[in-house]
């Protein structure tokens, strides 16, 4: 499938499950967007594409109040968390996050707002195609905690009414940043 079509399909599926998909052209534009979205603090764990593009300082520069360590203590009070994305799955609008590092998990499970930086070049067609990079991750590391994230957290446990944001994030913002990374094994 041509790349543009994959991006469209991914975006549509992600939006259908309640995520917001925003195209930006640089890390600093992403930081500006995030600044407009939160007032409280943002958990910023370390991940390679973020380090390469100096995400932490970009966020600071944009005026976002960031937390960069000691997440177990500060996560509860944070308003958001941001990570990169290893790759995405088009047909279901899914983000794949290699979350073995605990900070990635804390940043994506506890705060009500989840931000994700995705290079739109890293999208596979479906869950079957996702197996190849998934296996490579398993081959690279001996222990894994890998998350497929599709939209914000949800429940239909009361009278079958779909309700967003039960235990996990209530909002998911997917920022498409071209040129961020072309390595499916890297976040």
């Amino acid at each position, binding site marked *: 499938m041509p790349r543009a079509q994959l991006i469209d399909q991914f975006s549509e*599926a992600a939006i259908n*499950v309640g995520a917001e998909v925003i195209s930006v052209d640089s890390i600093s534009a992403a930081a500006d967007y995030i600044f407009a979205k939160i007032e409280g603090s943002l958990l910023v764990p370390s991940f390679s594409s973020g380090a390469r593009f100096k995400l932490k300082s970009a966020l600071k520069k944009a005026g976002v109040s960031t937390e960069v360590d000691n997440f*177990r203590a500060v996560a*509860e009070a944070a308003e958001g968390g941001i990570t990169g994305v290893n790759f995405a799955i088009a*047909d*279901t*609008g*899914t983000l794949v996050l290699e979350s*073995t*590092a*605990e900070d990635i*998990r*804390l940043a994506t*499970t*506890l705060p009500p707002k989840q931000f994700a930086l995705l290079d739109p070049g890293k999208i596979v067609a*479906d*869950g*079957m195609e*996702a*197996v190849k990079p*998934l*296996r490579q991750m*398993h081959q690279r590391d*001996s*222990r*894994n*905690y*890998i*998350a*497929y*994230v*599709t*939209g*914000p*957290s*949800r*429940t*239909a*446990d*009361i*009278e*079958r*009414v779909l*309700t967003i*944001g*039960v*235990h*996990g*994030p209530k909002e998911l913002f997917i920022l498409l940043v071209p040129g961020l990374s072309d390595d499916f094994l890297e976040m």
Partner: protein
Amino acid sequence: MNKQRSKDYRQRVDQALATPKLQDALHQFGDAFLISREKAFAGHDFEALRGNISAMKTEVRENHDELLQQFIDNAKAAGTIIYQAKTAADANRYITDLAKKKGAKLAVKSKSMVSEETHLSAALEKAGIQALETDLGEWIVQLAGQRPSHMVMPAIHMFKEEIADLFSKETGQQEPAEIEHLVEVARNQLRQSYLDADIGITGANIAVAETGGIALITNEGNARLASTMPKVHVALVGIEKLVPTLEDAARIIQVLPKNATGQLLTSYVTWIRGAVPCAGEDKEFHIVLLDNGRSALAESPQCRDALNCIRCGACANVCPVYQSVGGHVFGHVYIGAIGIILTAFYHGLDNAAELVKACIGCRSCVAVCPSNIDLEEIILHLREKVGDDEGIGAGKALVFRKVMQNRKLFHTMIKAASFLQKPVTRGERTIRHLPLFFSPLTEWRTLPAVADRALRDSFSQKSQKIDKPRYRVALFGGCANDFLYPELGLDLIEVMNALDVEVYYPLEQNCCGIPAIYSGEKETAVELAKQNIKAMLADNPDYVLTTCPTCAMALKHNFVEHLKDNPAWAERAEQLSKITIDAASFILNQLAGAELFADLAKSEKITYHDSCHLKRGVGVWQEPRHLIEKSGHELVEMEHADRCCGFGGSYSLTSHPDISKKILQDKVADIQASGATCVAMDCPGCMMQIRGGLEKSDVPIRAQHTIELLAEALRNK
């Protein structure tokens, strides 16, 4: 003991049937589920997908020991501690001991049906450790002191007002009964517990041999928290969750959410392998692999397909019995069709004994199962086992063995019943145990009288003038056509003659045996199969026609199954199976005869009821519709055309008349709402049920067999 058990069970049924609010909710859920499920599978080939899953799971079962060892080796290599629990008690003991050793006070649990199976929370509480459910539905059920009534939606039986009351008690303030607010209350109430907990307990949807890791398929995000925050993570996993590779896991993930809730994918799929980092150290990760009856299930050739289940819960969603009484009645811990089977193996046949009889046999579960499990067949097998263990009742056994196996006696008694019913009111029956004909008077449905002259006695008198017949076919009448609706058989002769087909009626034919199977009396069913094969093949018919799809299913499928290991009979059973066909399909497919009826009918608005055994038993639903339309009628579809009418033979007569009545009421309402003046069908059993229901509620809509409508049309010529 059995008597008391039955009494308690009856009481639960009555109570559930007296809760229309629950039924409404489950009906709406069933409807909405089918719509979103269809959407989710748009562009996918469900049959191919489920074929793959079923083949893969079967392969797993066949190579279970090696795959399990591979899983264990890989898991250990990644730092996982493995415990293999033979029984539920073993699993609970291991986990409580571990909790005690850690000095744990609080364990947070995410949803796990296996922990419900072992009653883990009760075991932990007994050891002084609080086990807190964090899945919203599970938490609600825990607060209410109940058990889940659905495998995917544990609190589906509860309403927001009740939930608001429960939450108010927890928070100590009045919580308004608004769903969004209640979800927020749960978020806030449970949040701190993830941080405080010493242990996180989860289940697993999949265990991957290739990696030694597990996958959790969830929506709420609580499993992610329960597996991240506490220092110790215990995953309690049934050994049937094993798959060989990541591709196989991906196949399940592709299908499970679609078939469970109509989602393309759940919010989270979490792959966990080994002791991952946790607060600057390695997490202590235990996987408890639970057997608890699974190996025994794998040993049962008739039942072991049930191990292929991926716990989507769909078999309950579409089940008319579940929709009528809910999962607290139609289930033990596991609910619905699969619940019956798992209960028998994981919680003992005794706990399943009432449930195996509560299945009406409509096969709607079989049609939606993503693992292609023939749930009905397994349930019937278990019914037979319960019948063997507990006896099916002396009266019934006598009737089946002594009467039905002796065709002459059986038929004499039916005729005697016809004689005896004369002086009494319509519907009253005197010999109560014979299938179909003899049941207590029901206040909710009229019953047809046994005809004065059975079809077998009128048949030869009907002249058939065909010079050069294209085919000579034998009619398998079945009890209802023979003794209740002989006119249907005579109509069939007319229709067939008009198409140059000669029909004859082998007199040695007997009941098809399905009523015996449904009552757990297999011995009789096998004997009847032999009698019928002999009778039907005796004169070398070109085809064997049926007017009853239950009989068609018996001749096409059950006889072959019963006799496949009997060299004297197997081939003949196959032969009969091959030439047996329902009348409507025969007209359309073998005779290409639709044209003959073109626009002959006095046009009427007709709606079509799909009989369970015609649509899901022999895969026929378009043919009769086509013939009805072709003959000049206007066809209007009712809602839920293929939902069971509630007949189920002795189900409606003796075993579960109360549930049958509820299902019939639904059907009558759908028929009425269609605006039709006639409801057509291809099954005398459905005719009996639906006619009875329409008559009793004074609805002026007639219920006719497709063949009767075609004969009517011909008479207009």
